C-alpha cells in the first residue's frame, strides 16, 4: 500500500458552524452520515450473524446424534436454507458494506459518500427485506426449505406458500446491494482528495471498487432468476418447468452465473482487509501492491467464466466438463498466489501479535486450507465423489468462516479504536480469538472426513459410520457459537470504556484514516487533506 506521508498539522475539527449528530431516534432514521450508516450496517450484520448462528446451532444439535431428536425433517430443511440465506446476504455482505461506509471516505479523504440519501435508503430497506424473509418461518407450510441455492423445480412447483415472500426479500436485498455498489463506485472515482491518485489508494478501497463492479454485474442476474421463478409460480410461464418446454438445468446455469462471482464478492473485501492489517503489524509495506491490484481486477473478470464447476454431476457433455475444469484450475493461479504476497510481507518484517494480527494470520492459514480443498473440487472426476457431500460443506465453510467472518472480526478489532476512541482490551480479544479458532477447526475439519466417507449434505439424519465426527462437529459448533458472546462483550466494553486511543492507534499503521483523531469526529475531511 503506497505510504502516504501526510504532515498535516493536527487540526481539531471544531470549526464553529459544525453541528454534531441529531438527538434520539431521528439521528439514526434520517442520517446521511457515512459513519452512522456504517455503524448501523455493522450492528445489523451482527444481529443477522447471531440469528443465522442460532439456526446453525439447531442444525448441529439435531446432527449431534444419529436419529431424529429435536426437529422434523421439513423444519430442518428450513433451518439449513435460512441459515445459508441469512449468513450470506445478512451477515457477510452487510458487514463488508458497513466497513466500506465507515472506512472508504476516510481512506480517500472524502467528506462523505457520493450519494448520502441513497446510502441511507439502501441500508434501511435491508431490515425490512429480512423481516419479510424471517416472517415466512411463521407461515403455513413454513419458511423456504429448498436450500439457499433454491434449485427449481423444488423451489417453484414443490415450494411452500412462503416462496413468494422469499422472492420479494431477495429482490429488496439485491436492490440494496446494487445501490450500495453504485454509491461506492461514485465515491471512489469522484471524491478522492487531491493527490490521492488511484495509484495511492489503500488496498481495502481497491478491492471494494472491484467488488462493487462485480455487484453491479451480478445482482441484477440474481433478481432476474428470482423474477423468472415468480413468473413460473404465479403467471404460468415455464422457464424451469419441463412440461411447458422449460429446463431445470437452465435455472442452475443462470443461478451459478450469479453464484460464482457472488463468492468472490464475499472474499475480495476480505483480501483488502488482510492487506491492510498484515503490513501494519509486520511494520513492512505490502509486498507486490501492484500485483495485488491487477490480480484482484483479473479475478473479477475471470470469475464469470467458471460457474459450471458447481454443476459437474448435472450431466454436461464431456467438452463442457473439461472446459470448466481447465478454466477453474487456471483462475485458481491469480487467486491462490495472493497468499504468497501476504507471506512475503511478513518475511523479514518486525511483527507484533495484537488481536487483529492474530485473526489475519488465522485467515491466511485457514483460508488457504479452504483454497486447497477448492482446488481438489475443481478436478471434475474427483468432484463426482465430493459433489453435494460434507466435503463441499467443509470447503465453503473454511473459506467463509475463517475467511470472510474472521477478516470482518479482524477489521472490527483493527478500526474499533478509531470509531470509539477507546483502546481495546487485548486479553479479552485474545480470549475471543483462541475460542473462535479452536471452535472453527473442531466444527469444520471433521466435516472433510464425513464428506469423503460418503455423507451427503442437507440431511437431518445420517448412517452410524458418520456418528463420531458429527458429534465432534456439533461440540465445536457450540464452542464457536458461544465464543461470539465474548466478541459482543468486547465490542460493548470498547464502546463504553477503555483508555483514550491516540489518533495513530497502531504503531505501524499508514493511511489517511489514522490522521484524524480517535474517535473520528462526526464530519471528517470537510476540507480535503493535502496528500503529497
Amino acid at each position, binding site marked *: 500500500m503506497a505510504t502516504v506521508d501526510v504532515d498535516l498539522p493536527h487540526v481539531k475539527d471544531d470549526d464553529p458552524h459544525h453541528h454534531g449528530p441529531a438527538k434520539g431516534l431521528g439521528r439514526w432514521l434520517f442520517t446521511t452520515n457515512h459513519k452512522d450508516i456504517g455503524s448501523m450496517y455493522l450492528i445489523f450484520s451482527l444481529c443477522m450473524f447471531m440469528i443465522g448462528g442460532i439456526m446453525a446451532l439447531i442444525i448441529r444439535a439435531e446432527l449431534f446424534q444419529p436419529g431424529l431428536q429435536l426437529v422434523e425433517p421439513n423444519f430442518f430443511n428450513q433451518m439449513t436454507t435460512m441459515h445459508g440465506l441469512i449468513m450470506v446476504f445478512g451477515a457477510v455482505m452487510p458487514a463488508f458494506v458497513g466497513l466500506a461506509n465507515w472506512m472508504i471516505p476516510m481512506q480517500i479523504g472524502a467528506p462523505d459518500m457520493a450519494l448520502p440519501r441513497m446510502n441511507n435508503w439502501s441500508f434501511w430497506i435491508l431490515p425490512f427485506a429480512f423481516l419479510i424473509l424471517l416472517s415466512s418461518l411463521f407461515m403455513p407450510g413454513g419458511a423456504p426449505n429448498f436450500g439457499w441455492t433454491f*434449485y427449481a423445480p423444488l423451489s417453484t412447483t414443490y415450494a411452500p406458500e412462503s416462496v413468494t415472500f422469499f422472492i420479494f426479500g431477495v429482490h429488496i436485498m439485491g436492490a440494496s446491494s446494487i445501490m450500495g455498489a453504485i454509491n461506492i463506485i461514485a465515491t471512489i472515482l469522484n471524491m478522492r482528495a487531491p493527490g490521492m491518485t488511484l495509484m495511492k489508494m489503500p488496498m481495502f478501497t481497491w478491492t471494494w471498487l472491484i467488488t462493487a463492479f462485480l455487484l453491479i454485474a451480478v445482482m441484477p442476474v440474481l433478481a432476474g432468476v428470482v423474477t423468472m421463478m415468480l413468473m413460473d409460480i404465479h403467471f404460468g410461464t415455464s422457464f424451469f418447468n419441463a412440461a411447458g418446454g422449460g429446463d431445470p438445468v437452465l435455472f442452475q446455469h443462470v443461478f451459478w452465473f450469479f453464484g460464482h462471482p457472488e463468492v468472490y464478492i464475499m472474499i475480495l473485501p476480505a483480501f483488502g482487509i488482510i492487506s491492510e492489517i498484515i503490513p501494519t503489524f509486520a511494520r513492512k509495506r505490502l509486498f507486490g501492491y501492484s500485483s495485488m491490484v491487477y490480480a484482484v481486477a483479473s479475478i473479477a473478470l475471470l470469475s464469470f467464466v467458471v460457474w459450471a464447476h458447481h454443476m459437474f454431476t448435472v450431466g454436461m457433455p464431456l467438452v463442457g466438463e473439461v472446459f470448466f475444469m481447465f478454466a477453474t484450475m487456471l483462475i485458481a493461479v491469480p487467486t491462490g498466489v495472493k497468499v504468497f504476497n501476504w507471506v512475503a510481507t511478513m518475511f523479514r518484517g518486525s511483527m507484533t501479535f495484537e488481536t487483529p494480527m492474530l485473526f489475519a494470520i488465522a485467515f491466511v492459514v485457514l483460508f488457504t486450507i479452504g483454497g486447497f480443498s477448492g482446488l481438489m473440487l475443481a478436478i471434475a472426476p474427483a468432484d463426482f465423489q465430493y459433489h453435494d457431500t460434507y466435503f463441499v460443506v467443509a470447503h465453503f465453510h473454511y473459506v467463509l468462516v475463517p475467511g470472510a467472518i474472521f477478516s470482518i472480526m479482524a477489521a472490527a478489532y483493527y478500526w474499533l479504536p478509531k470509531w470509539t476512541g477507546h483502546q481495546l482490551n487485548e486479553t479479552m480479544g485474545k480470549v475471543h480469538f483462541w475460542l473462535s479458532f479452536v471452535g472453527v477447526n473442531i466444527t469444520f475439519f471433521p466435516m472433510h472426513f464425513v464428506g469423503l466417507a460418503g455423507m451427503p449434505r442437507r440431511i437431518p439424519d445420517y448412517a452410524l459410520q458418520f456418528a463420531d465426527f458429527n458429534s465432534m462437529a456439533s461440540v465445536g459448533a457450540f464452542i464457536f457459537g458461544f465464543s461470539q458472546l465474548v466478541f459482543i462483550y468486547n465490542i460493548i466494553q470498547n464502546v463504553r470504556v477503555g483508555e483514550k486511543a491516540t489518533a495513530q492507534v497502531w504503531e505501524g499503521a499508514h493511511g489517511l484514516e489514522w490522521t484524524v483523531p480517535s474517535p473520528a469526529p462526526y464530519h471528517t475531511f470537510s476540507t480535503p487533506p493535502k496528500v503529497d
Partner: protein
Amino acid sequence: MTKAITLALSLLAVPAWADWQVNMNEGVTAISREVFDLHMLIFWICVAIGIAVFGVMFYSIFKFRKSKGAVAEHWHENTTVEVLWTVIPFVILIGMAVPATATLMDMYDTSEADVDIQITGYQWKWRYQYLDEDIDFFSNLSTPREEIMNAQAKNANYLLEVDNPLVIPANKKVRFLITANDVIHSWWVPHFAVKKDAIPGFINESWVKVEEPGVYRGQCTELCGKDHGFMPVVVEVKSEEDYAKWVADQKAMKLAMAGEASKQFSMDELLAKGEGVYQATCAGCHQLNGQGIPGAFPAITGSSIATGSIDGHIDIVVNGKAGTAMQAFKEQLSAVDIAAVVTYQRNALGNSVGDMVQPSAIQK
C-alpha cells in the same frame, strides 16, 4: 416429556459401531480406483504446497518478531520472485490436469452395455426398470420408524437399507439411464464413484463395471424435499449365474403375484399384511398412529374418506390426489398390498368400519 425420554435414550444408545473413516472410499471398480488415486495425488500436492507456504510463514512469525528486536526491511516488490511463484503452481496445475482429463474421458465411455437399467427418482424413493427384462420395482427405505425415532436401538445399516435393492451382474458393463419423476434427485454409490443428477423431463446416463460381488450402499445427494435423507441406494452385485437366477425368480414371482391377485383373503390376512404396508409406505406422512400432521398431512383416524365410501378410498390410494403430496400408489403397490392397506386403514388406527377389500376389486 416424551422428547426428554427419547433424548436420554439416544445419548445412552452409544452407536454400536464407531467408525473413524477419514478418507474417500477406494471403491470396487476400475474408475473408482482411478478417481481415488487422482484424489490422493492432488491431496499430497496440496499438502506439499501447504507445508512450503506455512513453513515460510511460521518461520517468519517466530524469527521476525519485534519483541526479539527484528527490524523491518523496506523492499516491497520483486517481480521475478512473483513470476516464479506464479509459474510453478501453473506447471503443477498442468501436471494435475493431464491425469484428470484422462480419468474423465474414461468415465464418458459410450461402448455398448450388457444390461440397461432405467433409474427414476421419486419423492423419497427410487424406481428401477430393467429395459431388456420386464422387471420394474420400487426401492423404499426399510429402516423401521422406531429406530429413527430412537425408540429402538439402531442396526448396523441404519438409513442405508431398502426393501428391494437394485441387483446387477458382476464384471458386466451396466448402463444406468437416470431421470426423475418430480424434483431433481441425484443417484450416488460411493464405491462405484457414480453420481448423476436425476432431472425431471430429461435423461442422463452413467455406467459401472463392478469387479467384486457384494452389497454397496449410497444415498440421494441432491436436496429433494422432506425425506431427502431417507431415500438410500442399495446395489447388490451378484455373480453372473446368481444374477440370471435372480432374473428368473423375479419373473416367476411376477406370475405368482398375478395369480395371487385373484385369490380371496381373510380379514386377518389383509390386516396383517396391511399393517406392514402402512408402516413402510403411509406412516411417513400420516404418522404411525394415523393422526397425520395438522395443516400438512390429513389424519386417517376418523377421516371422511377412510370411513366413507370404499370406492372413494380405493380411488384416492390408486390415483392419488393431484396438486397435493398424496401420490398415486397404482404403480408402487401391488393389488394385494393396496387391498390390504385399505382394509387396514378402515379397521385399525381408531377406525372400525368393518368392511374389507379383495385384491380382485382393485383395477389398476
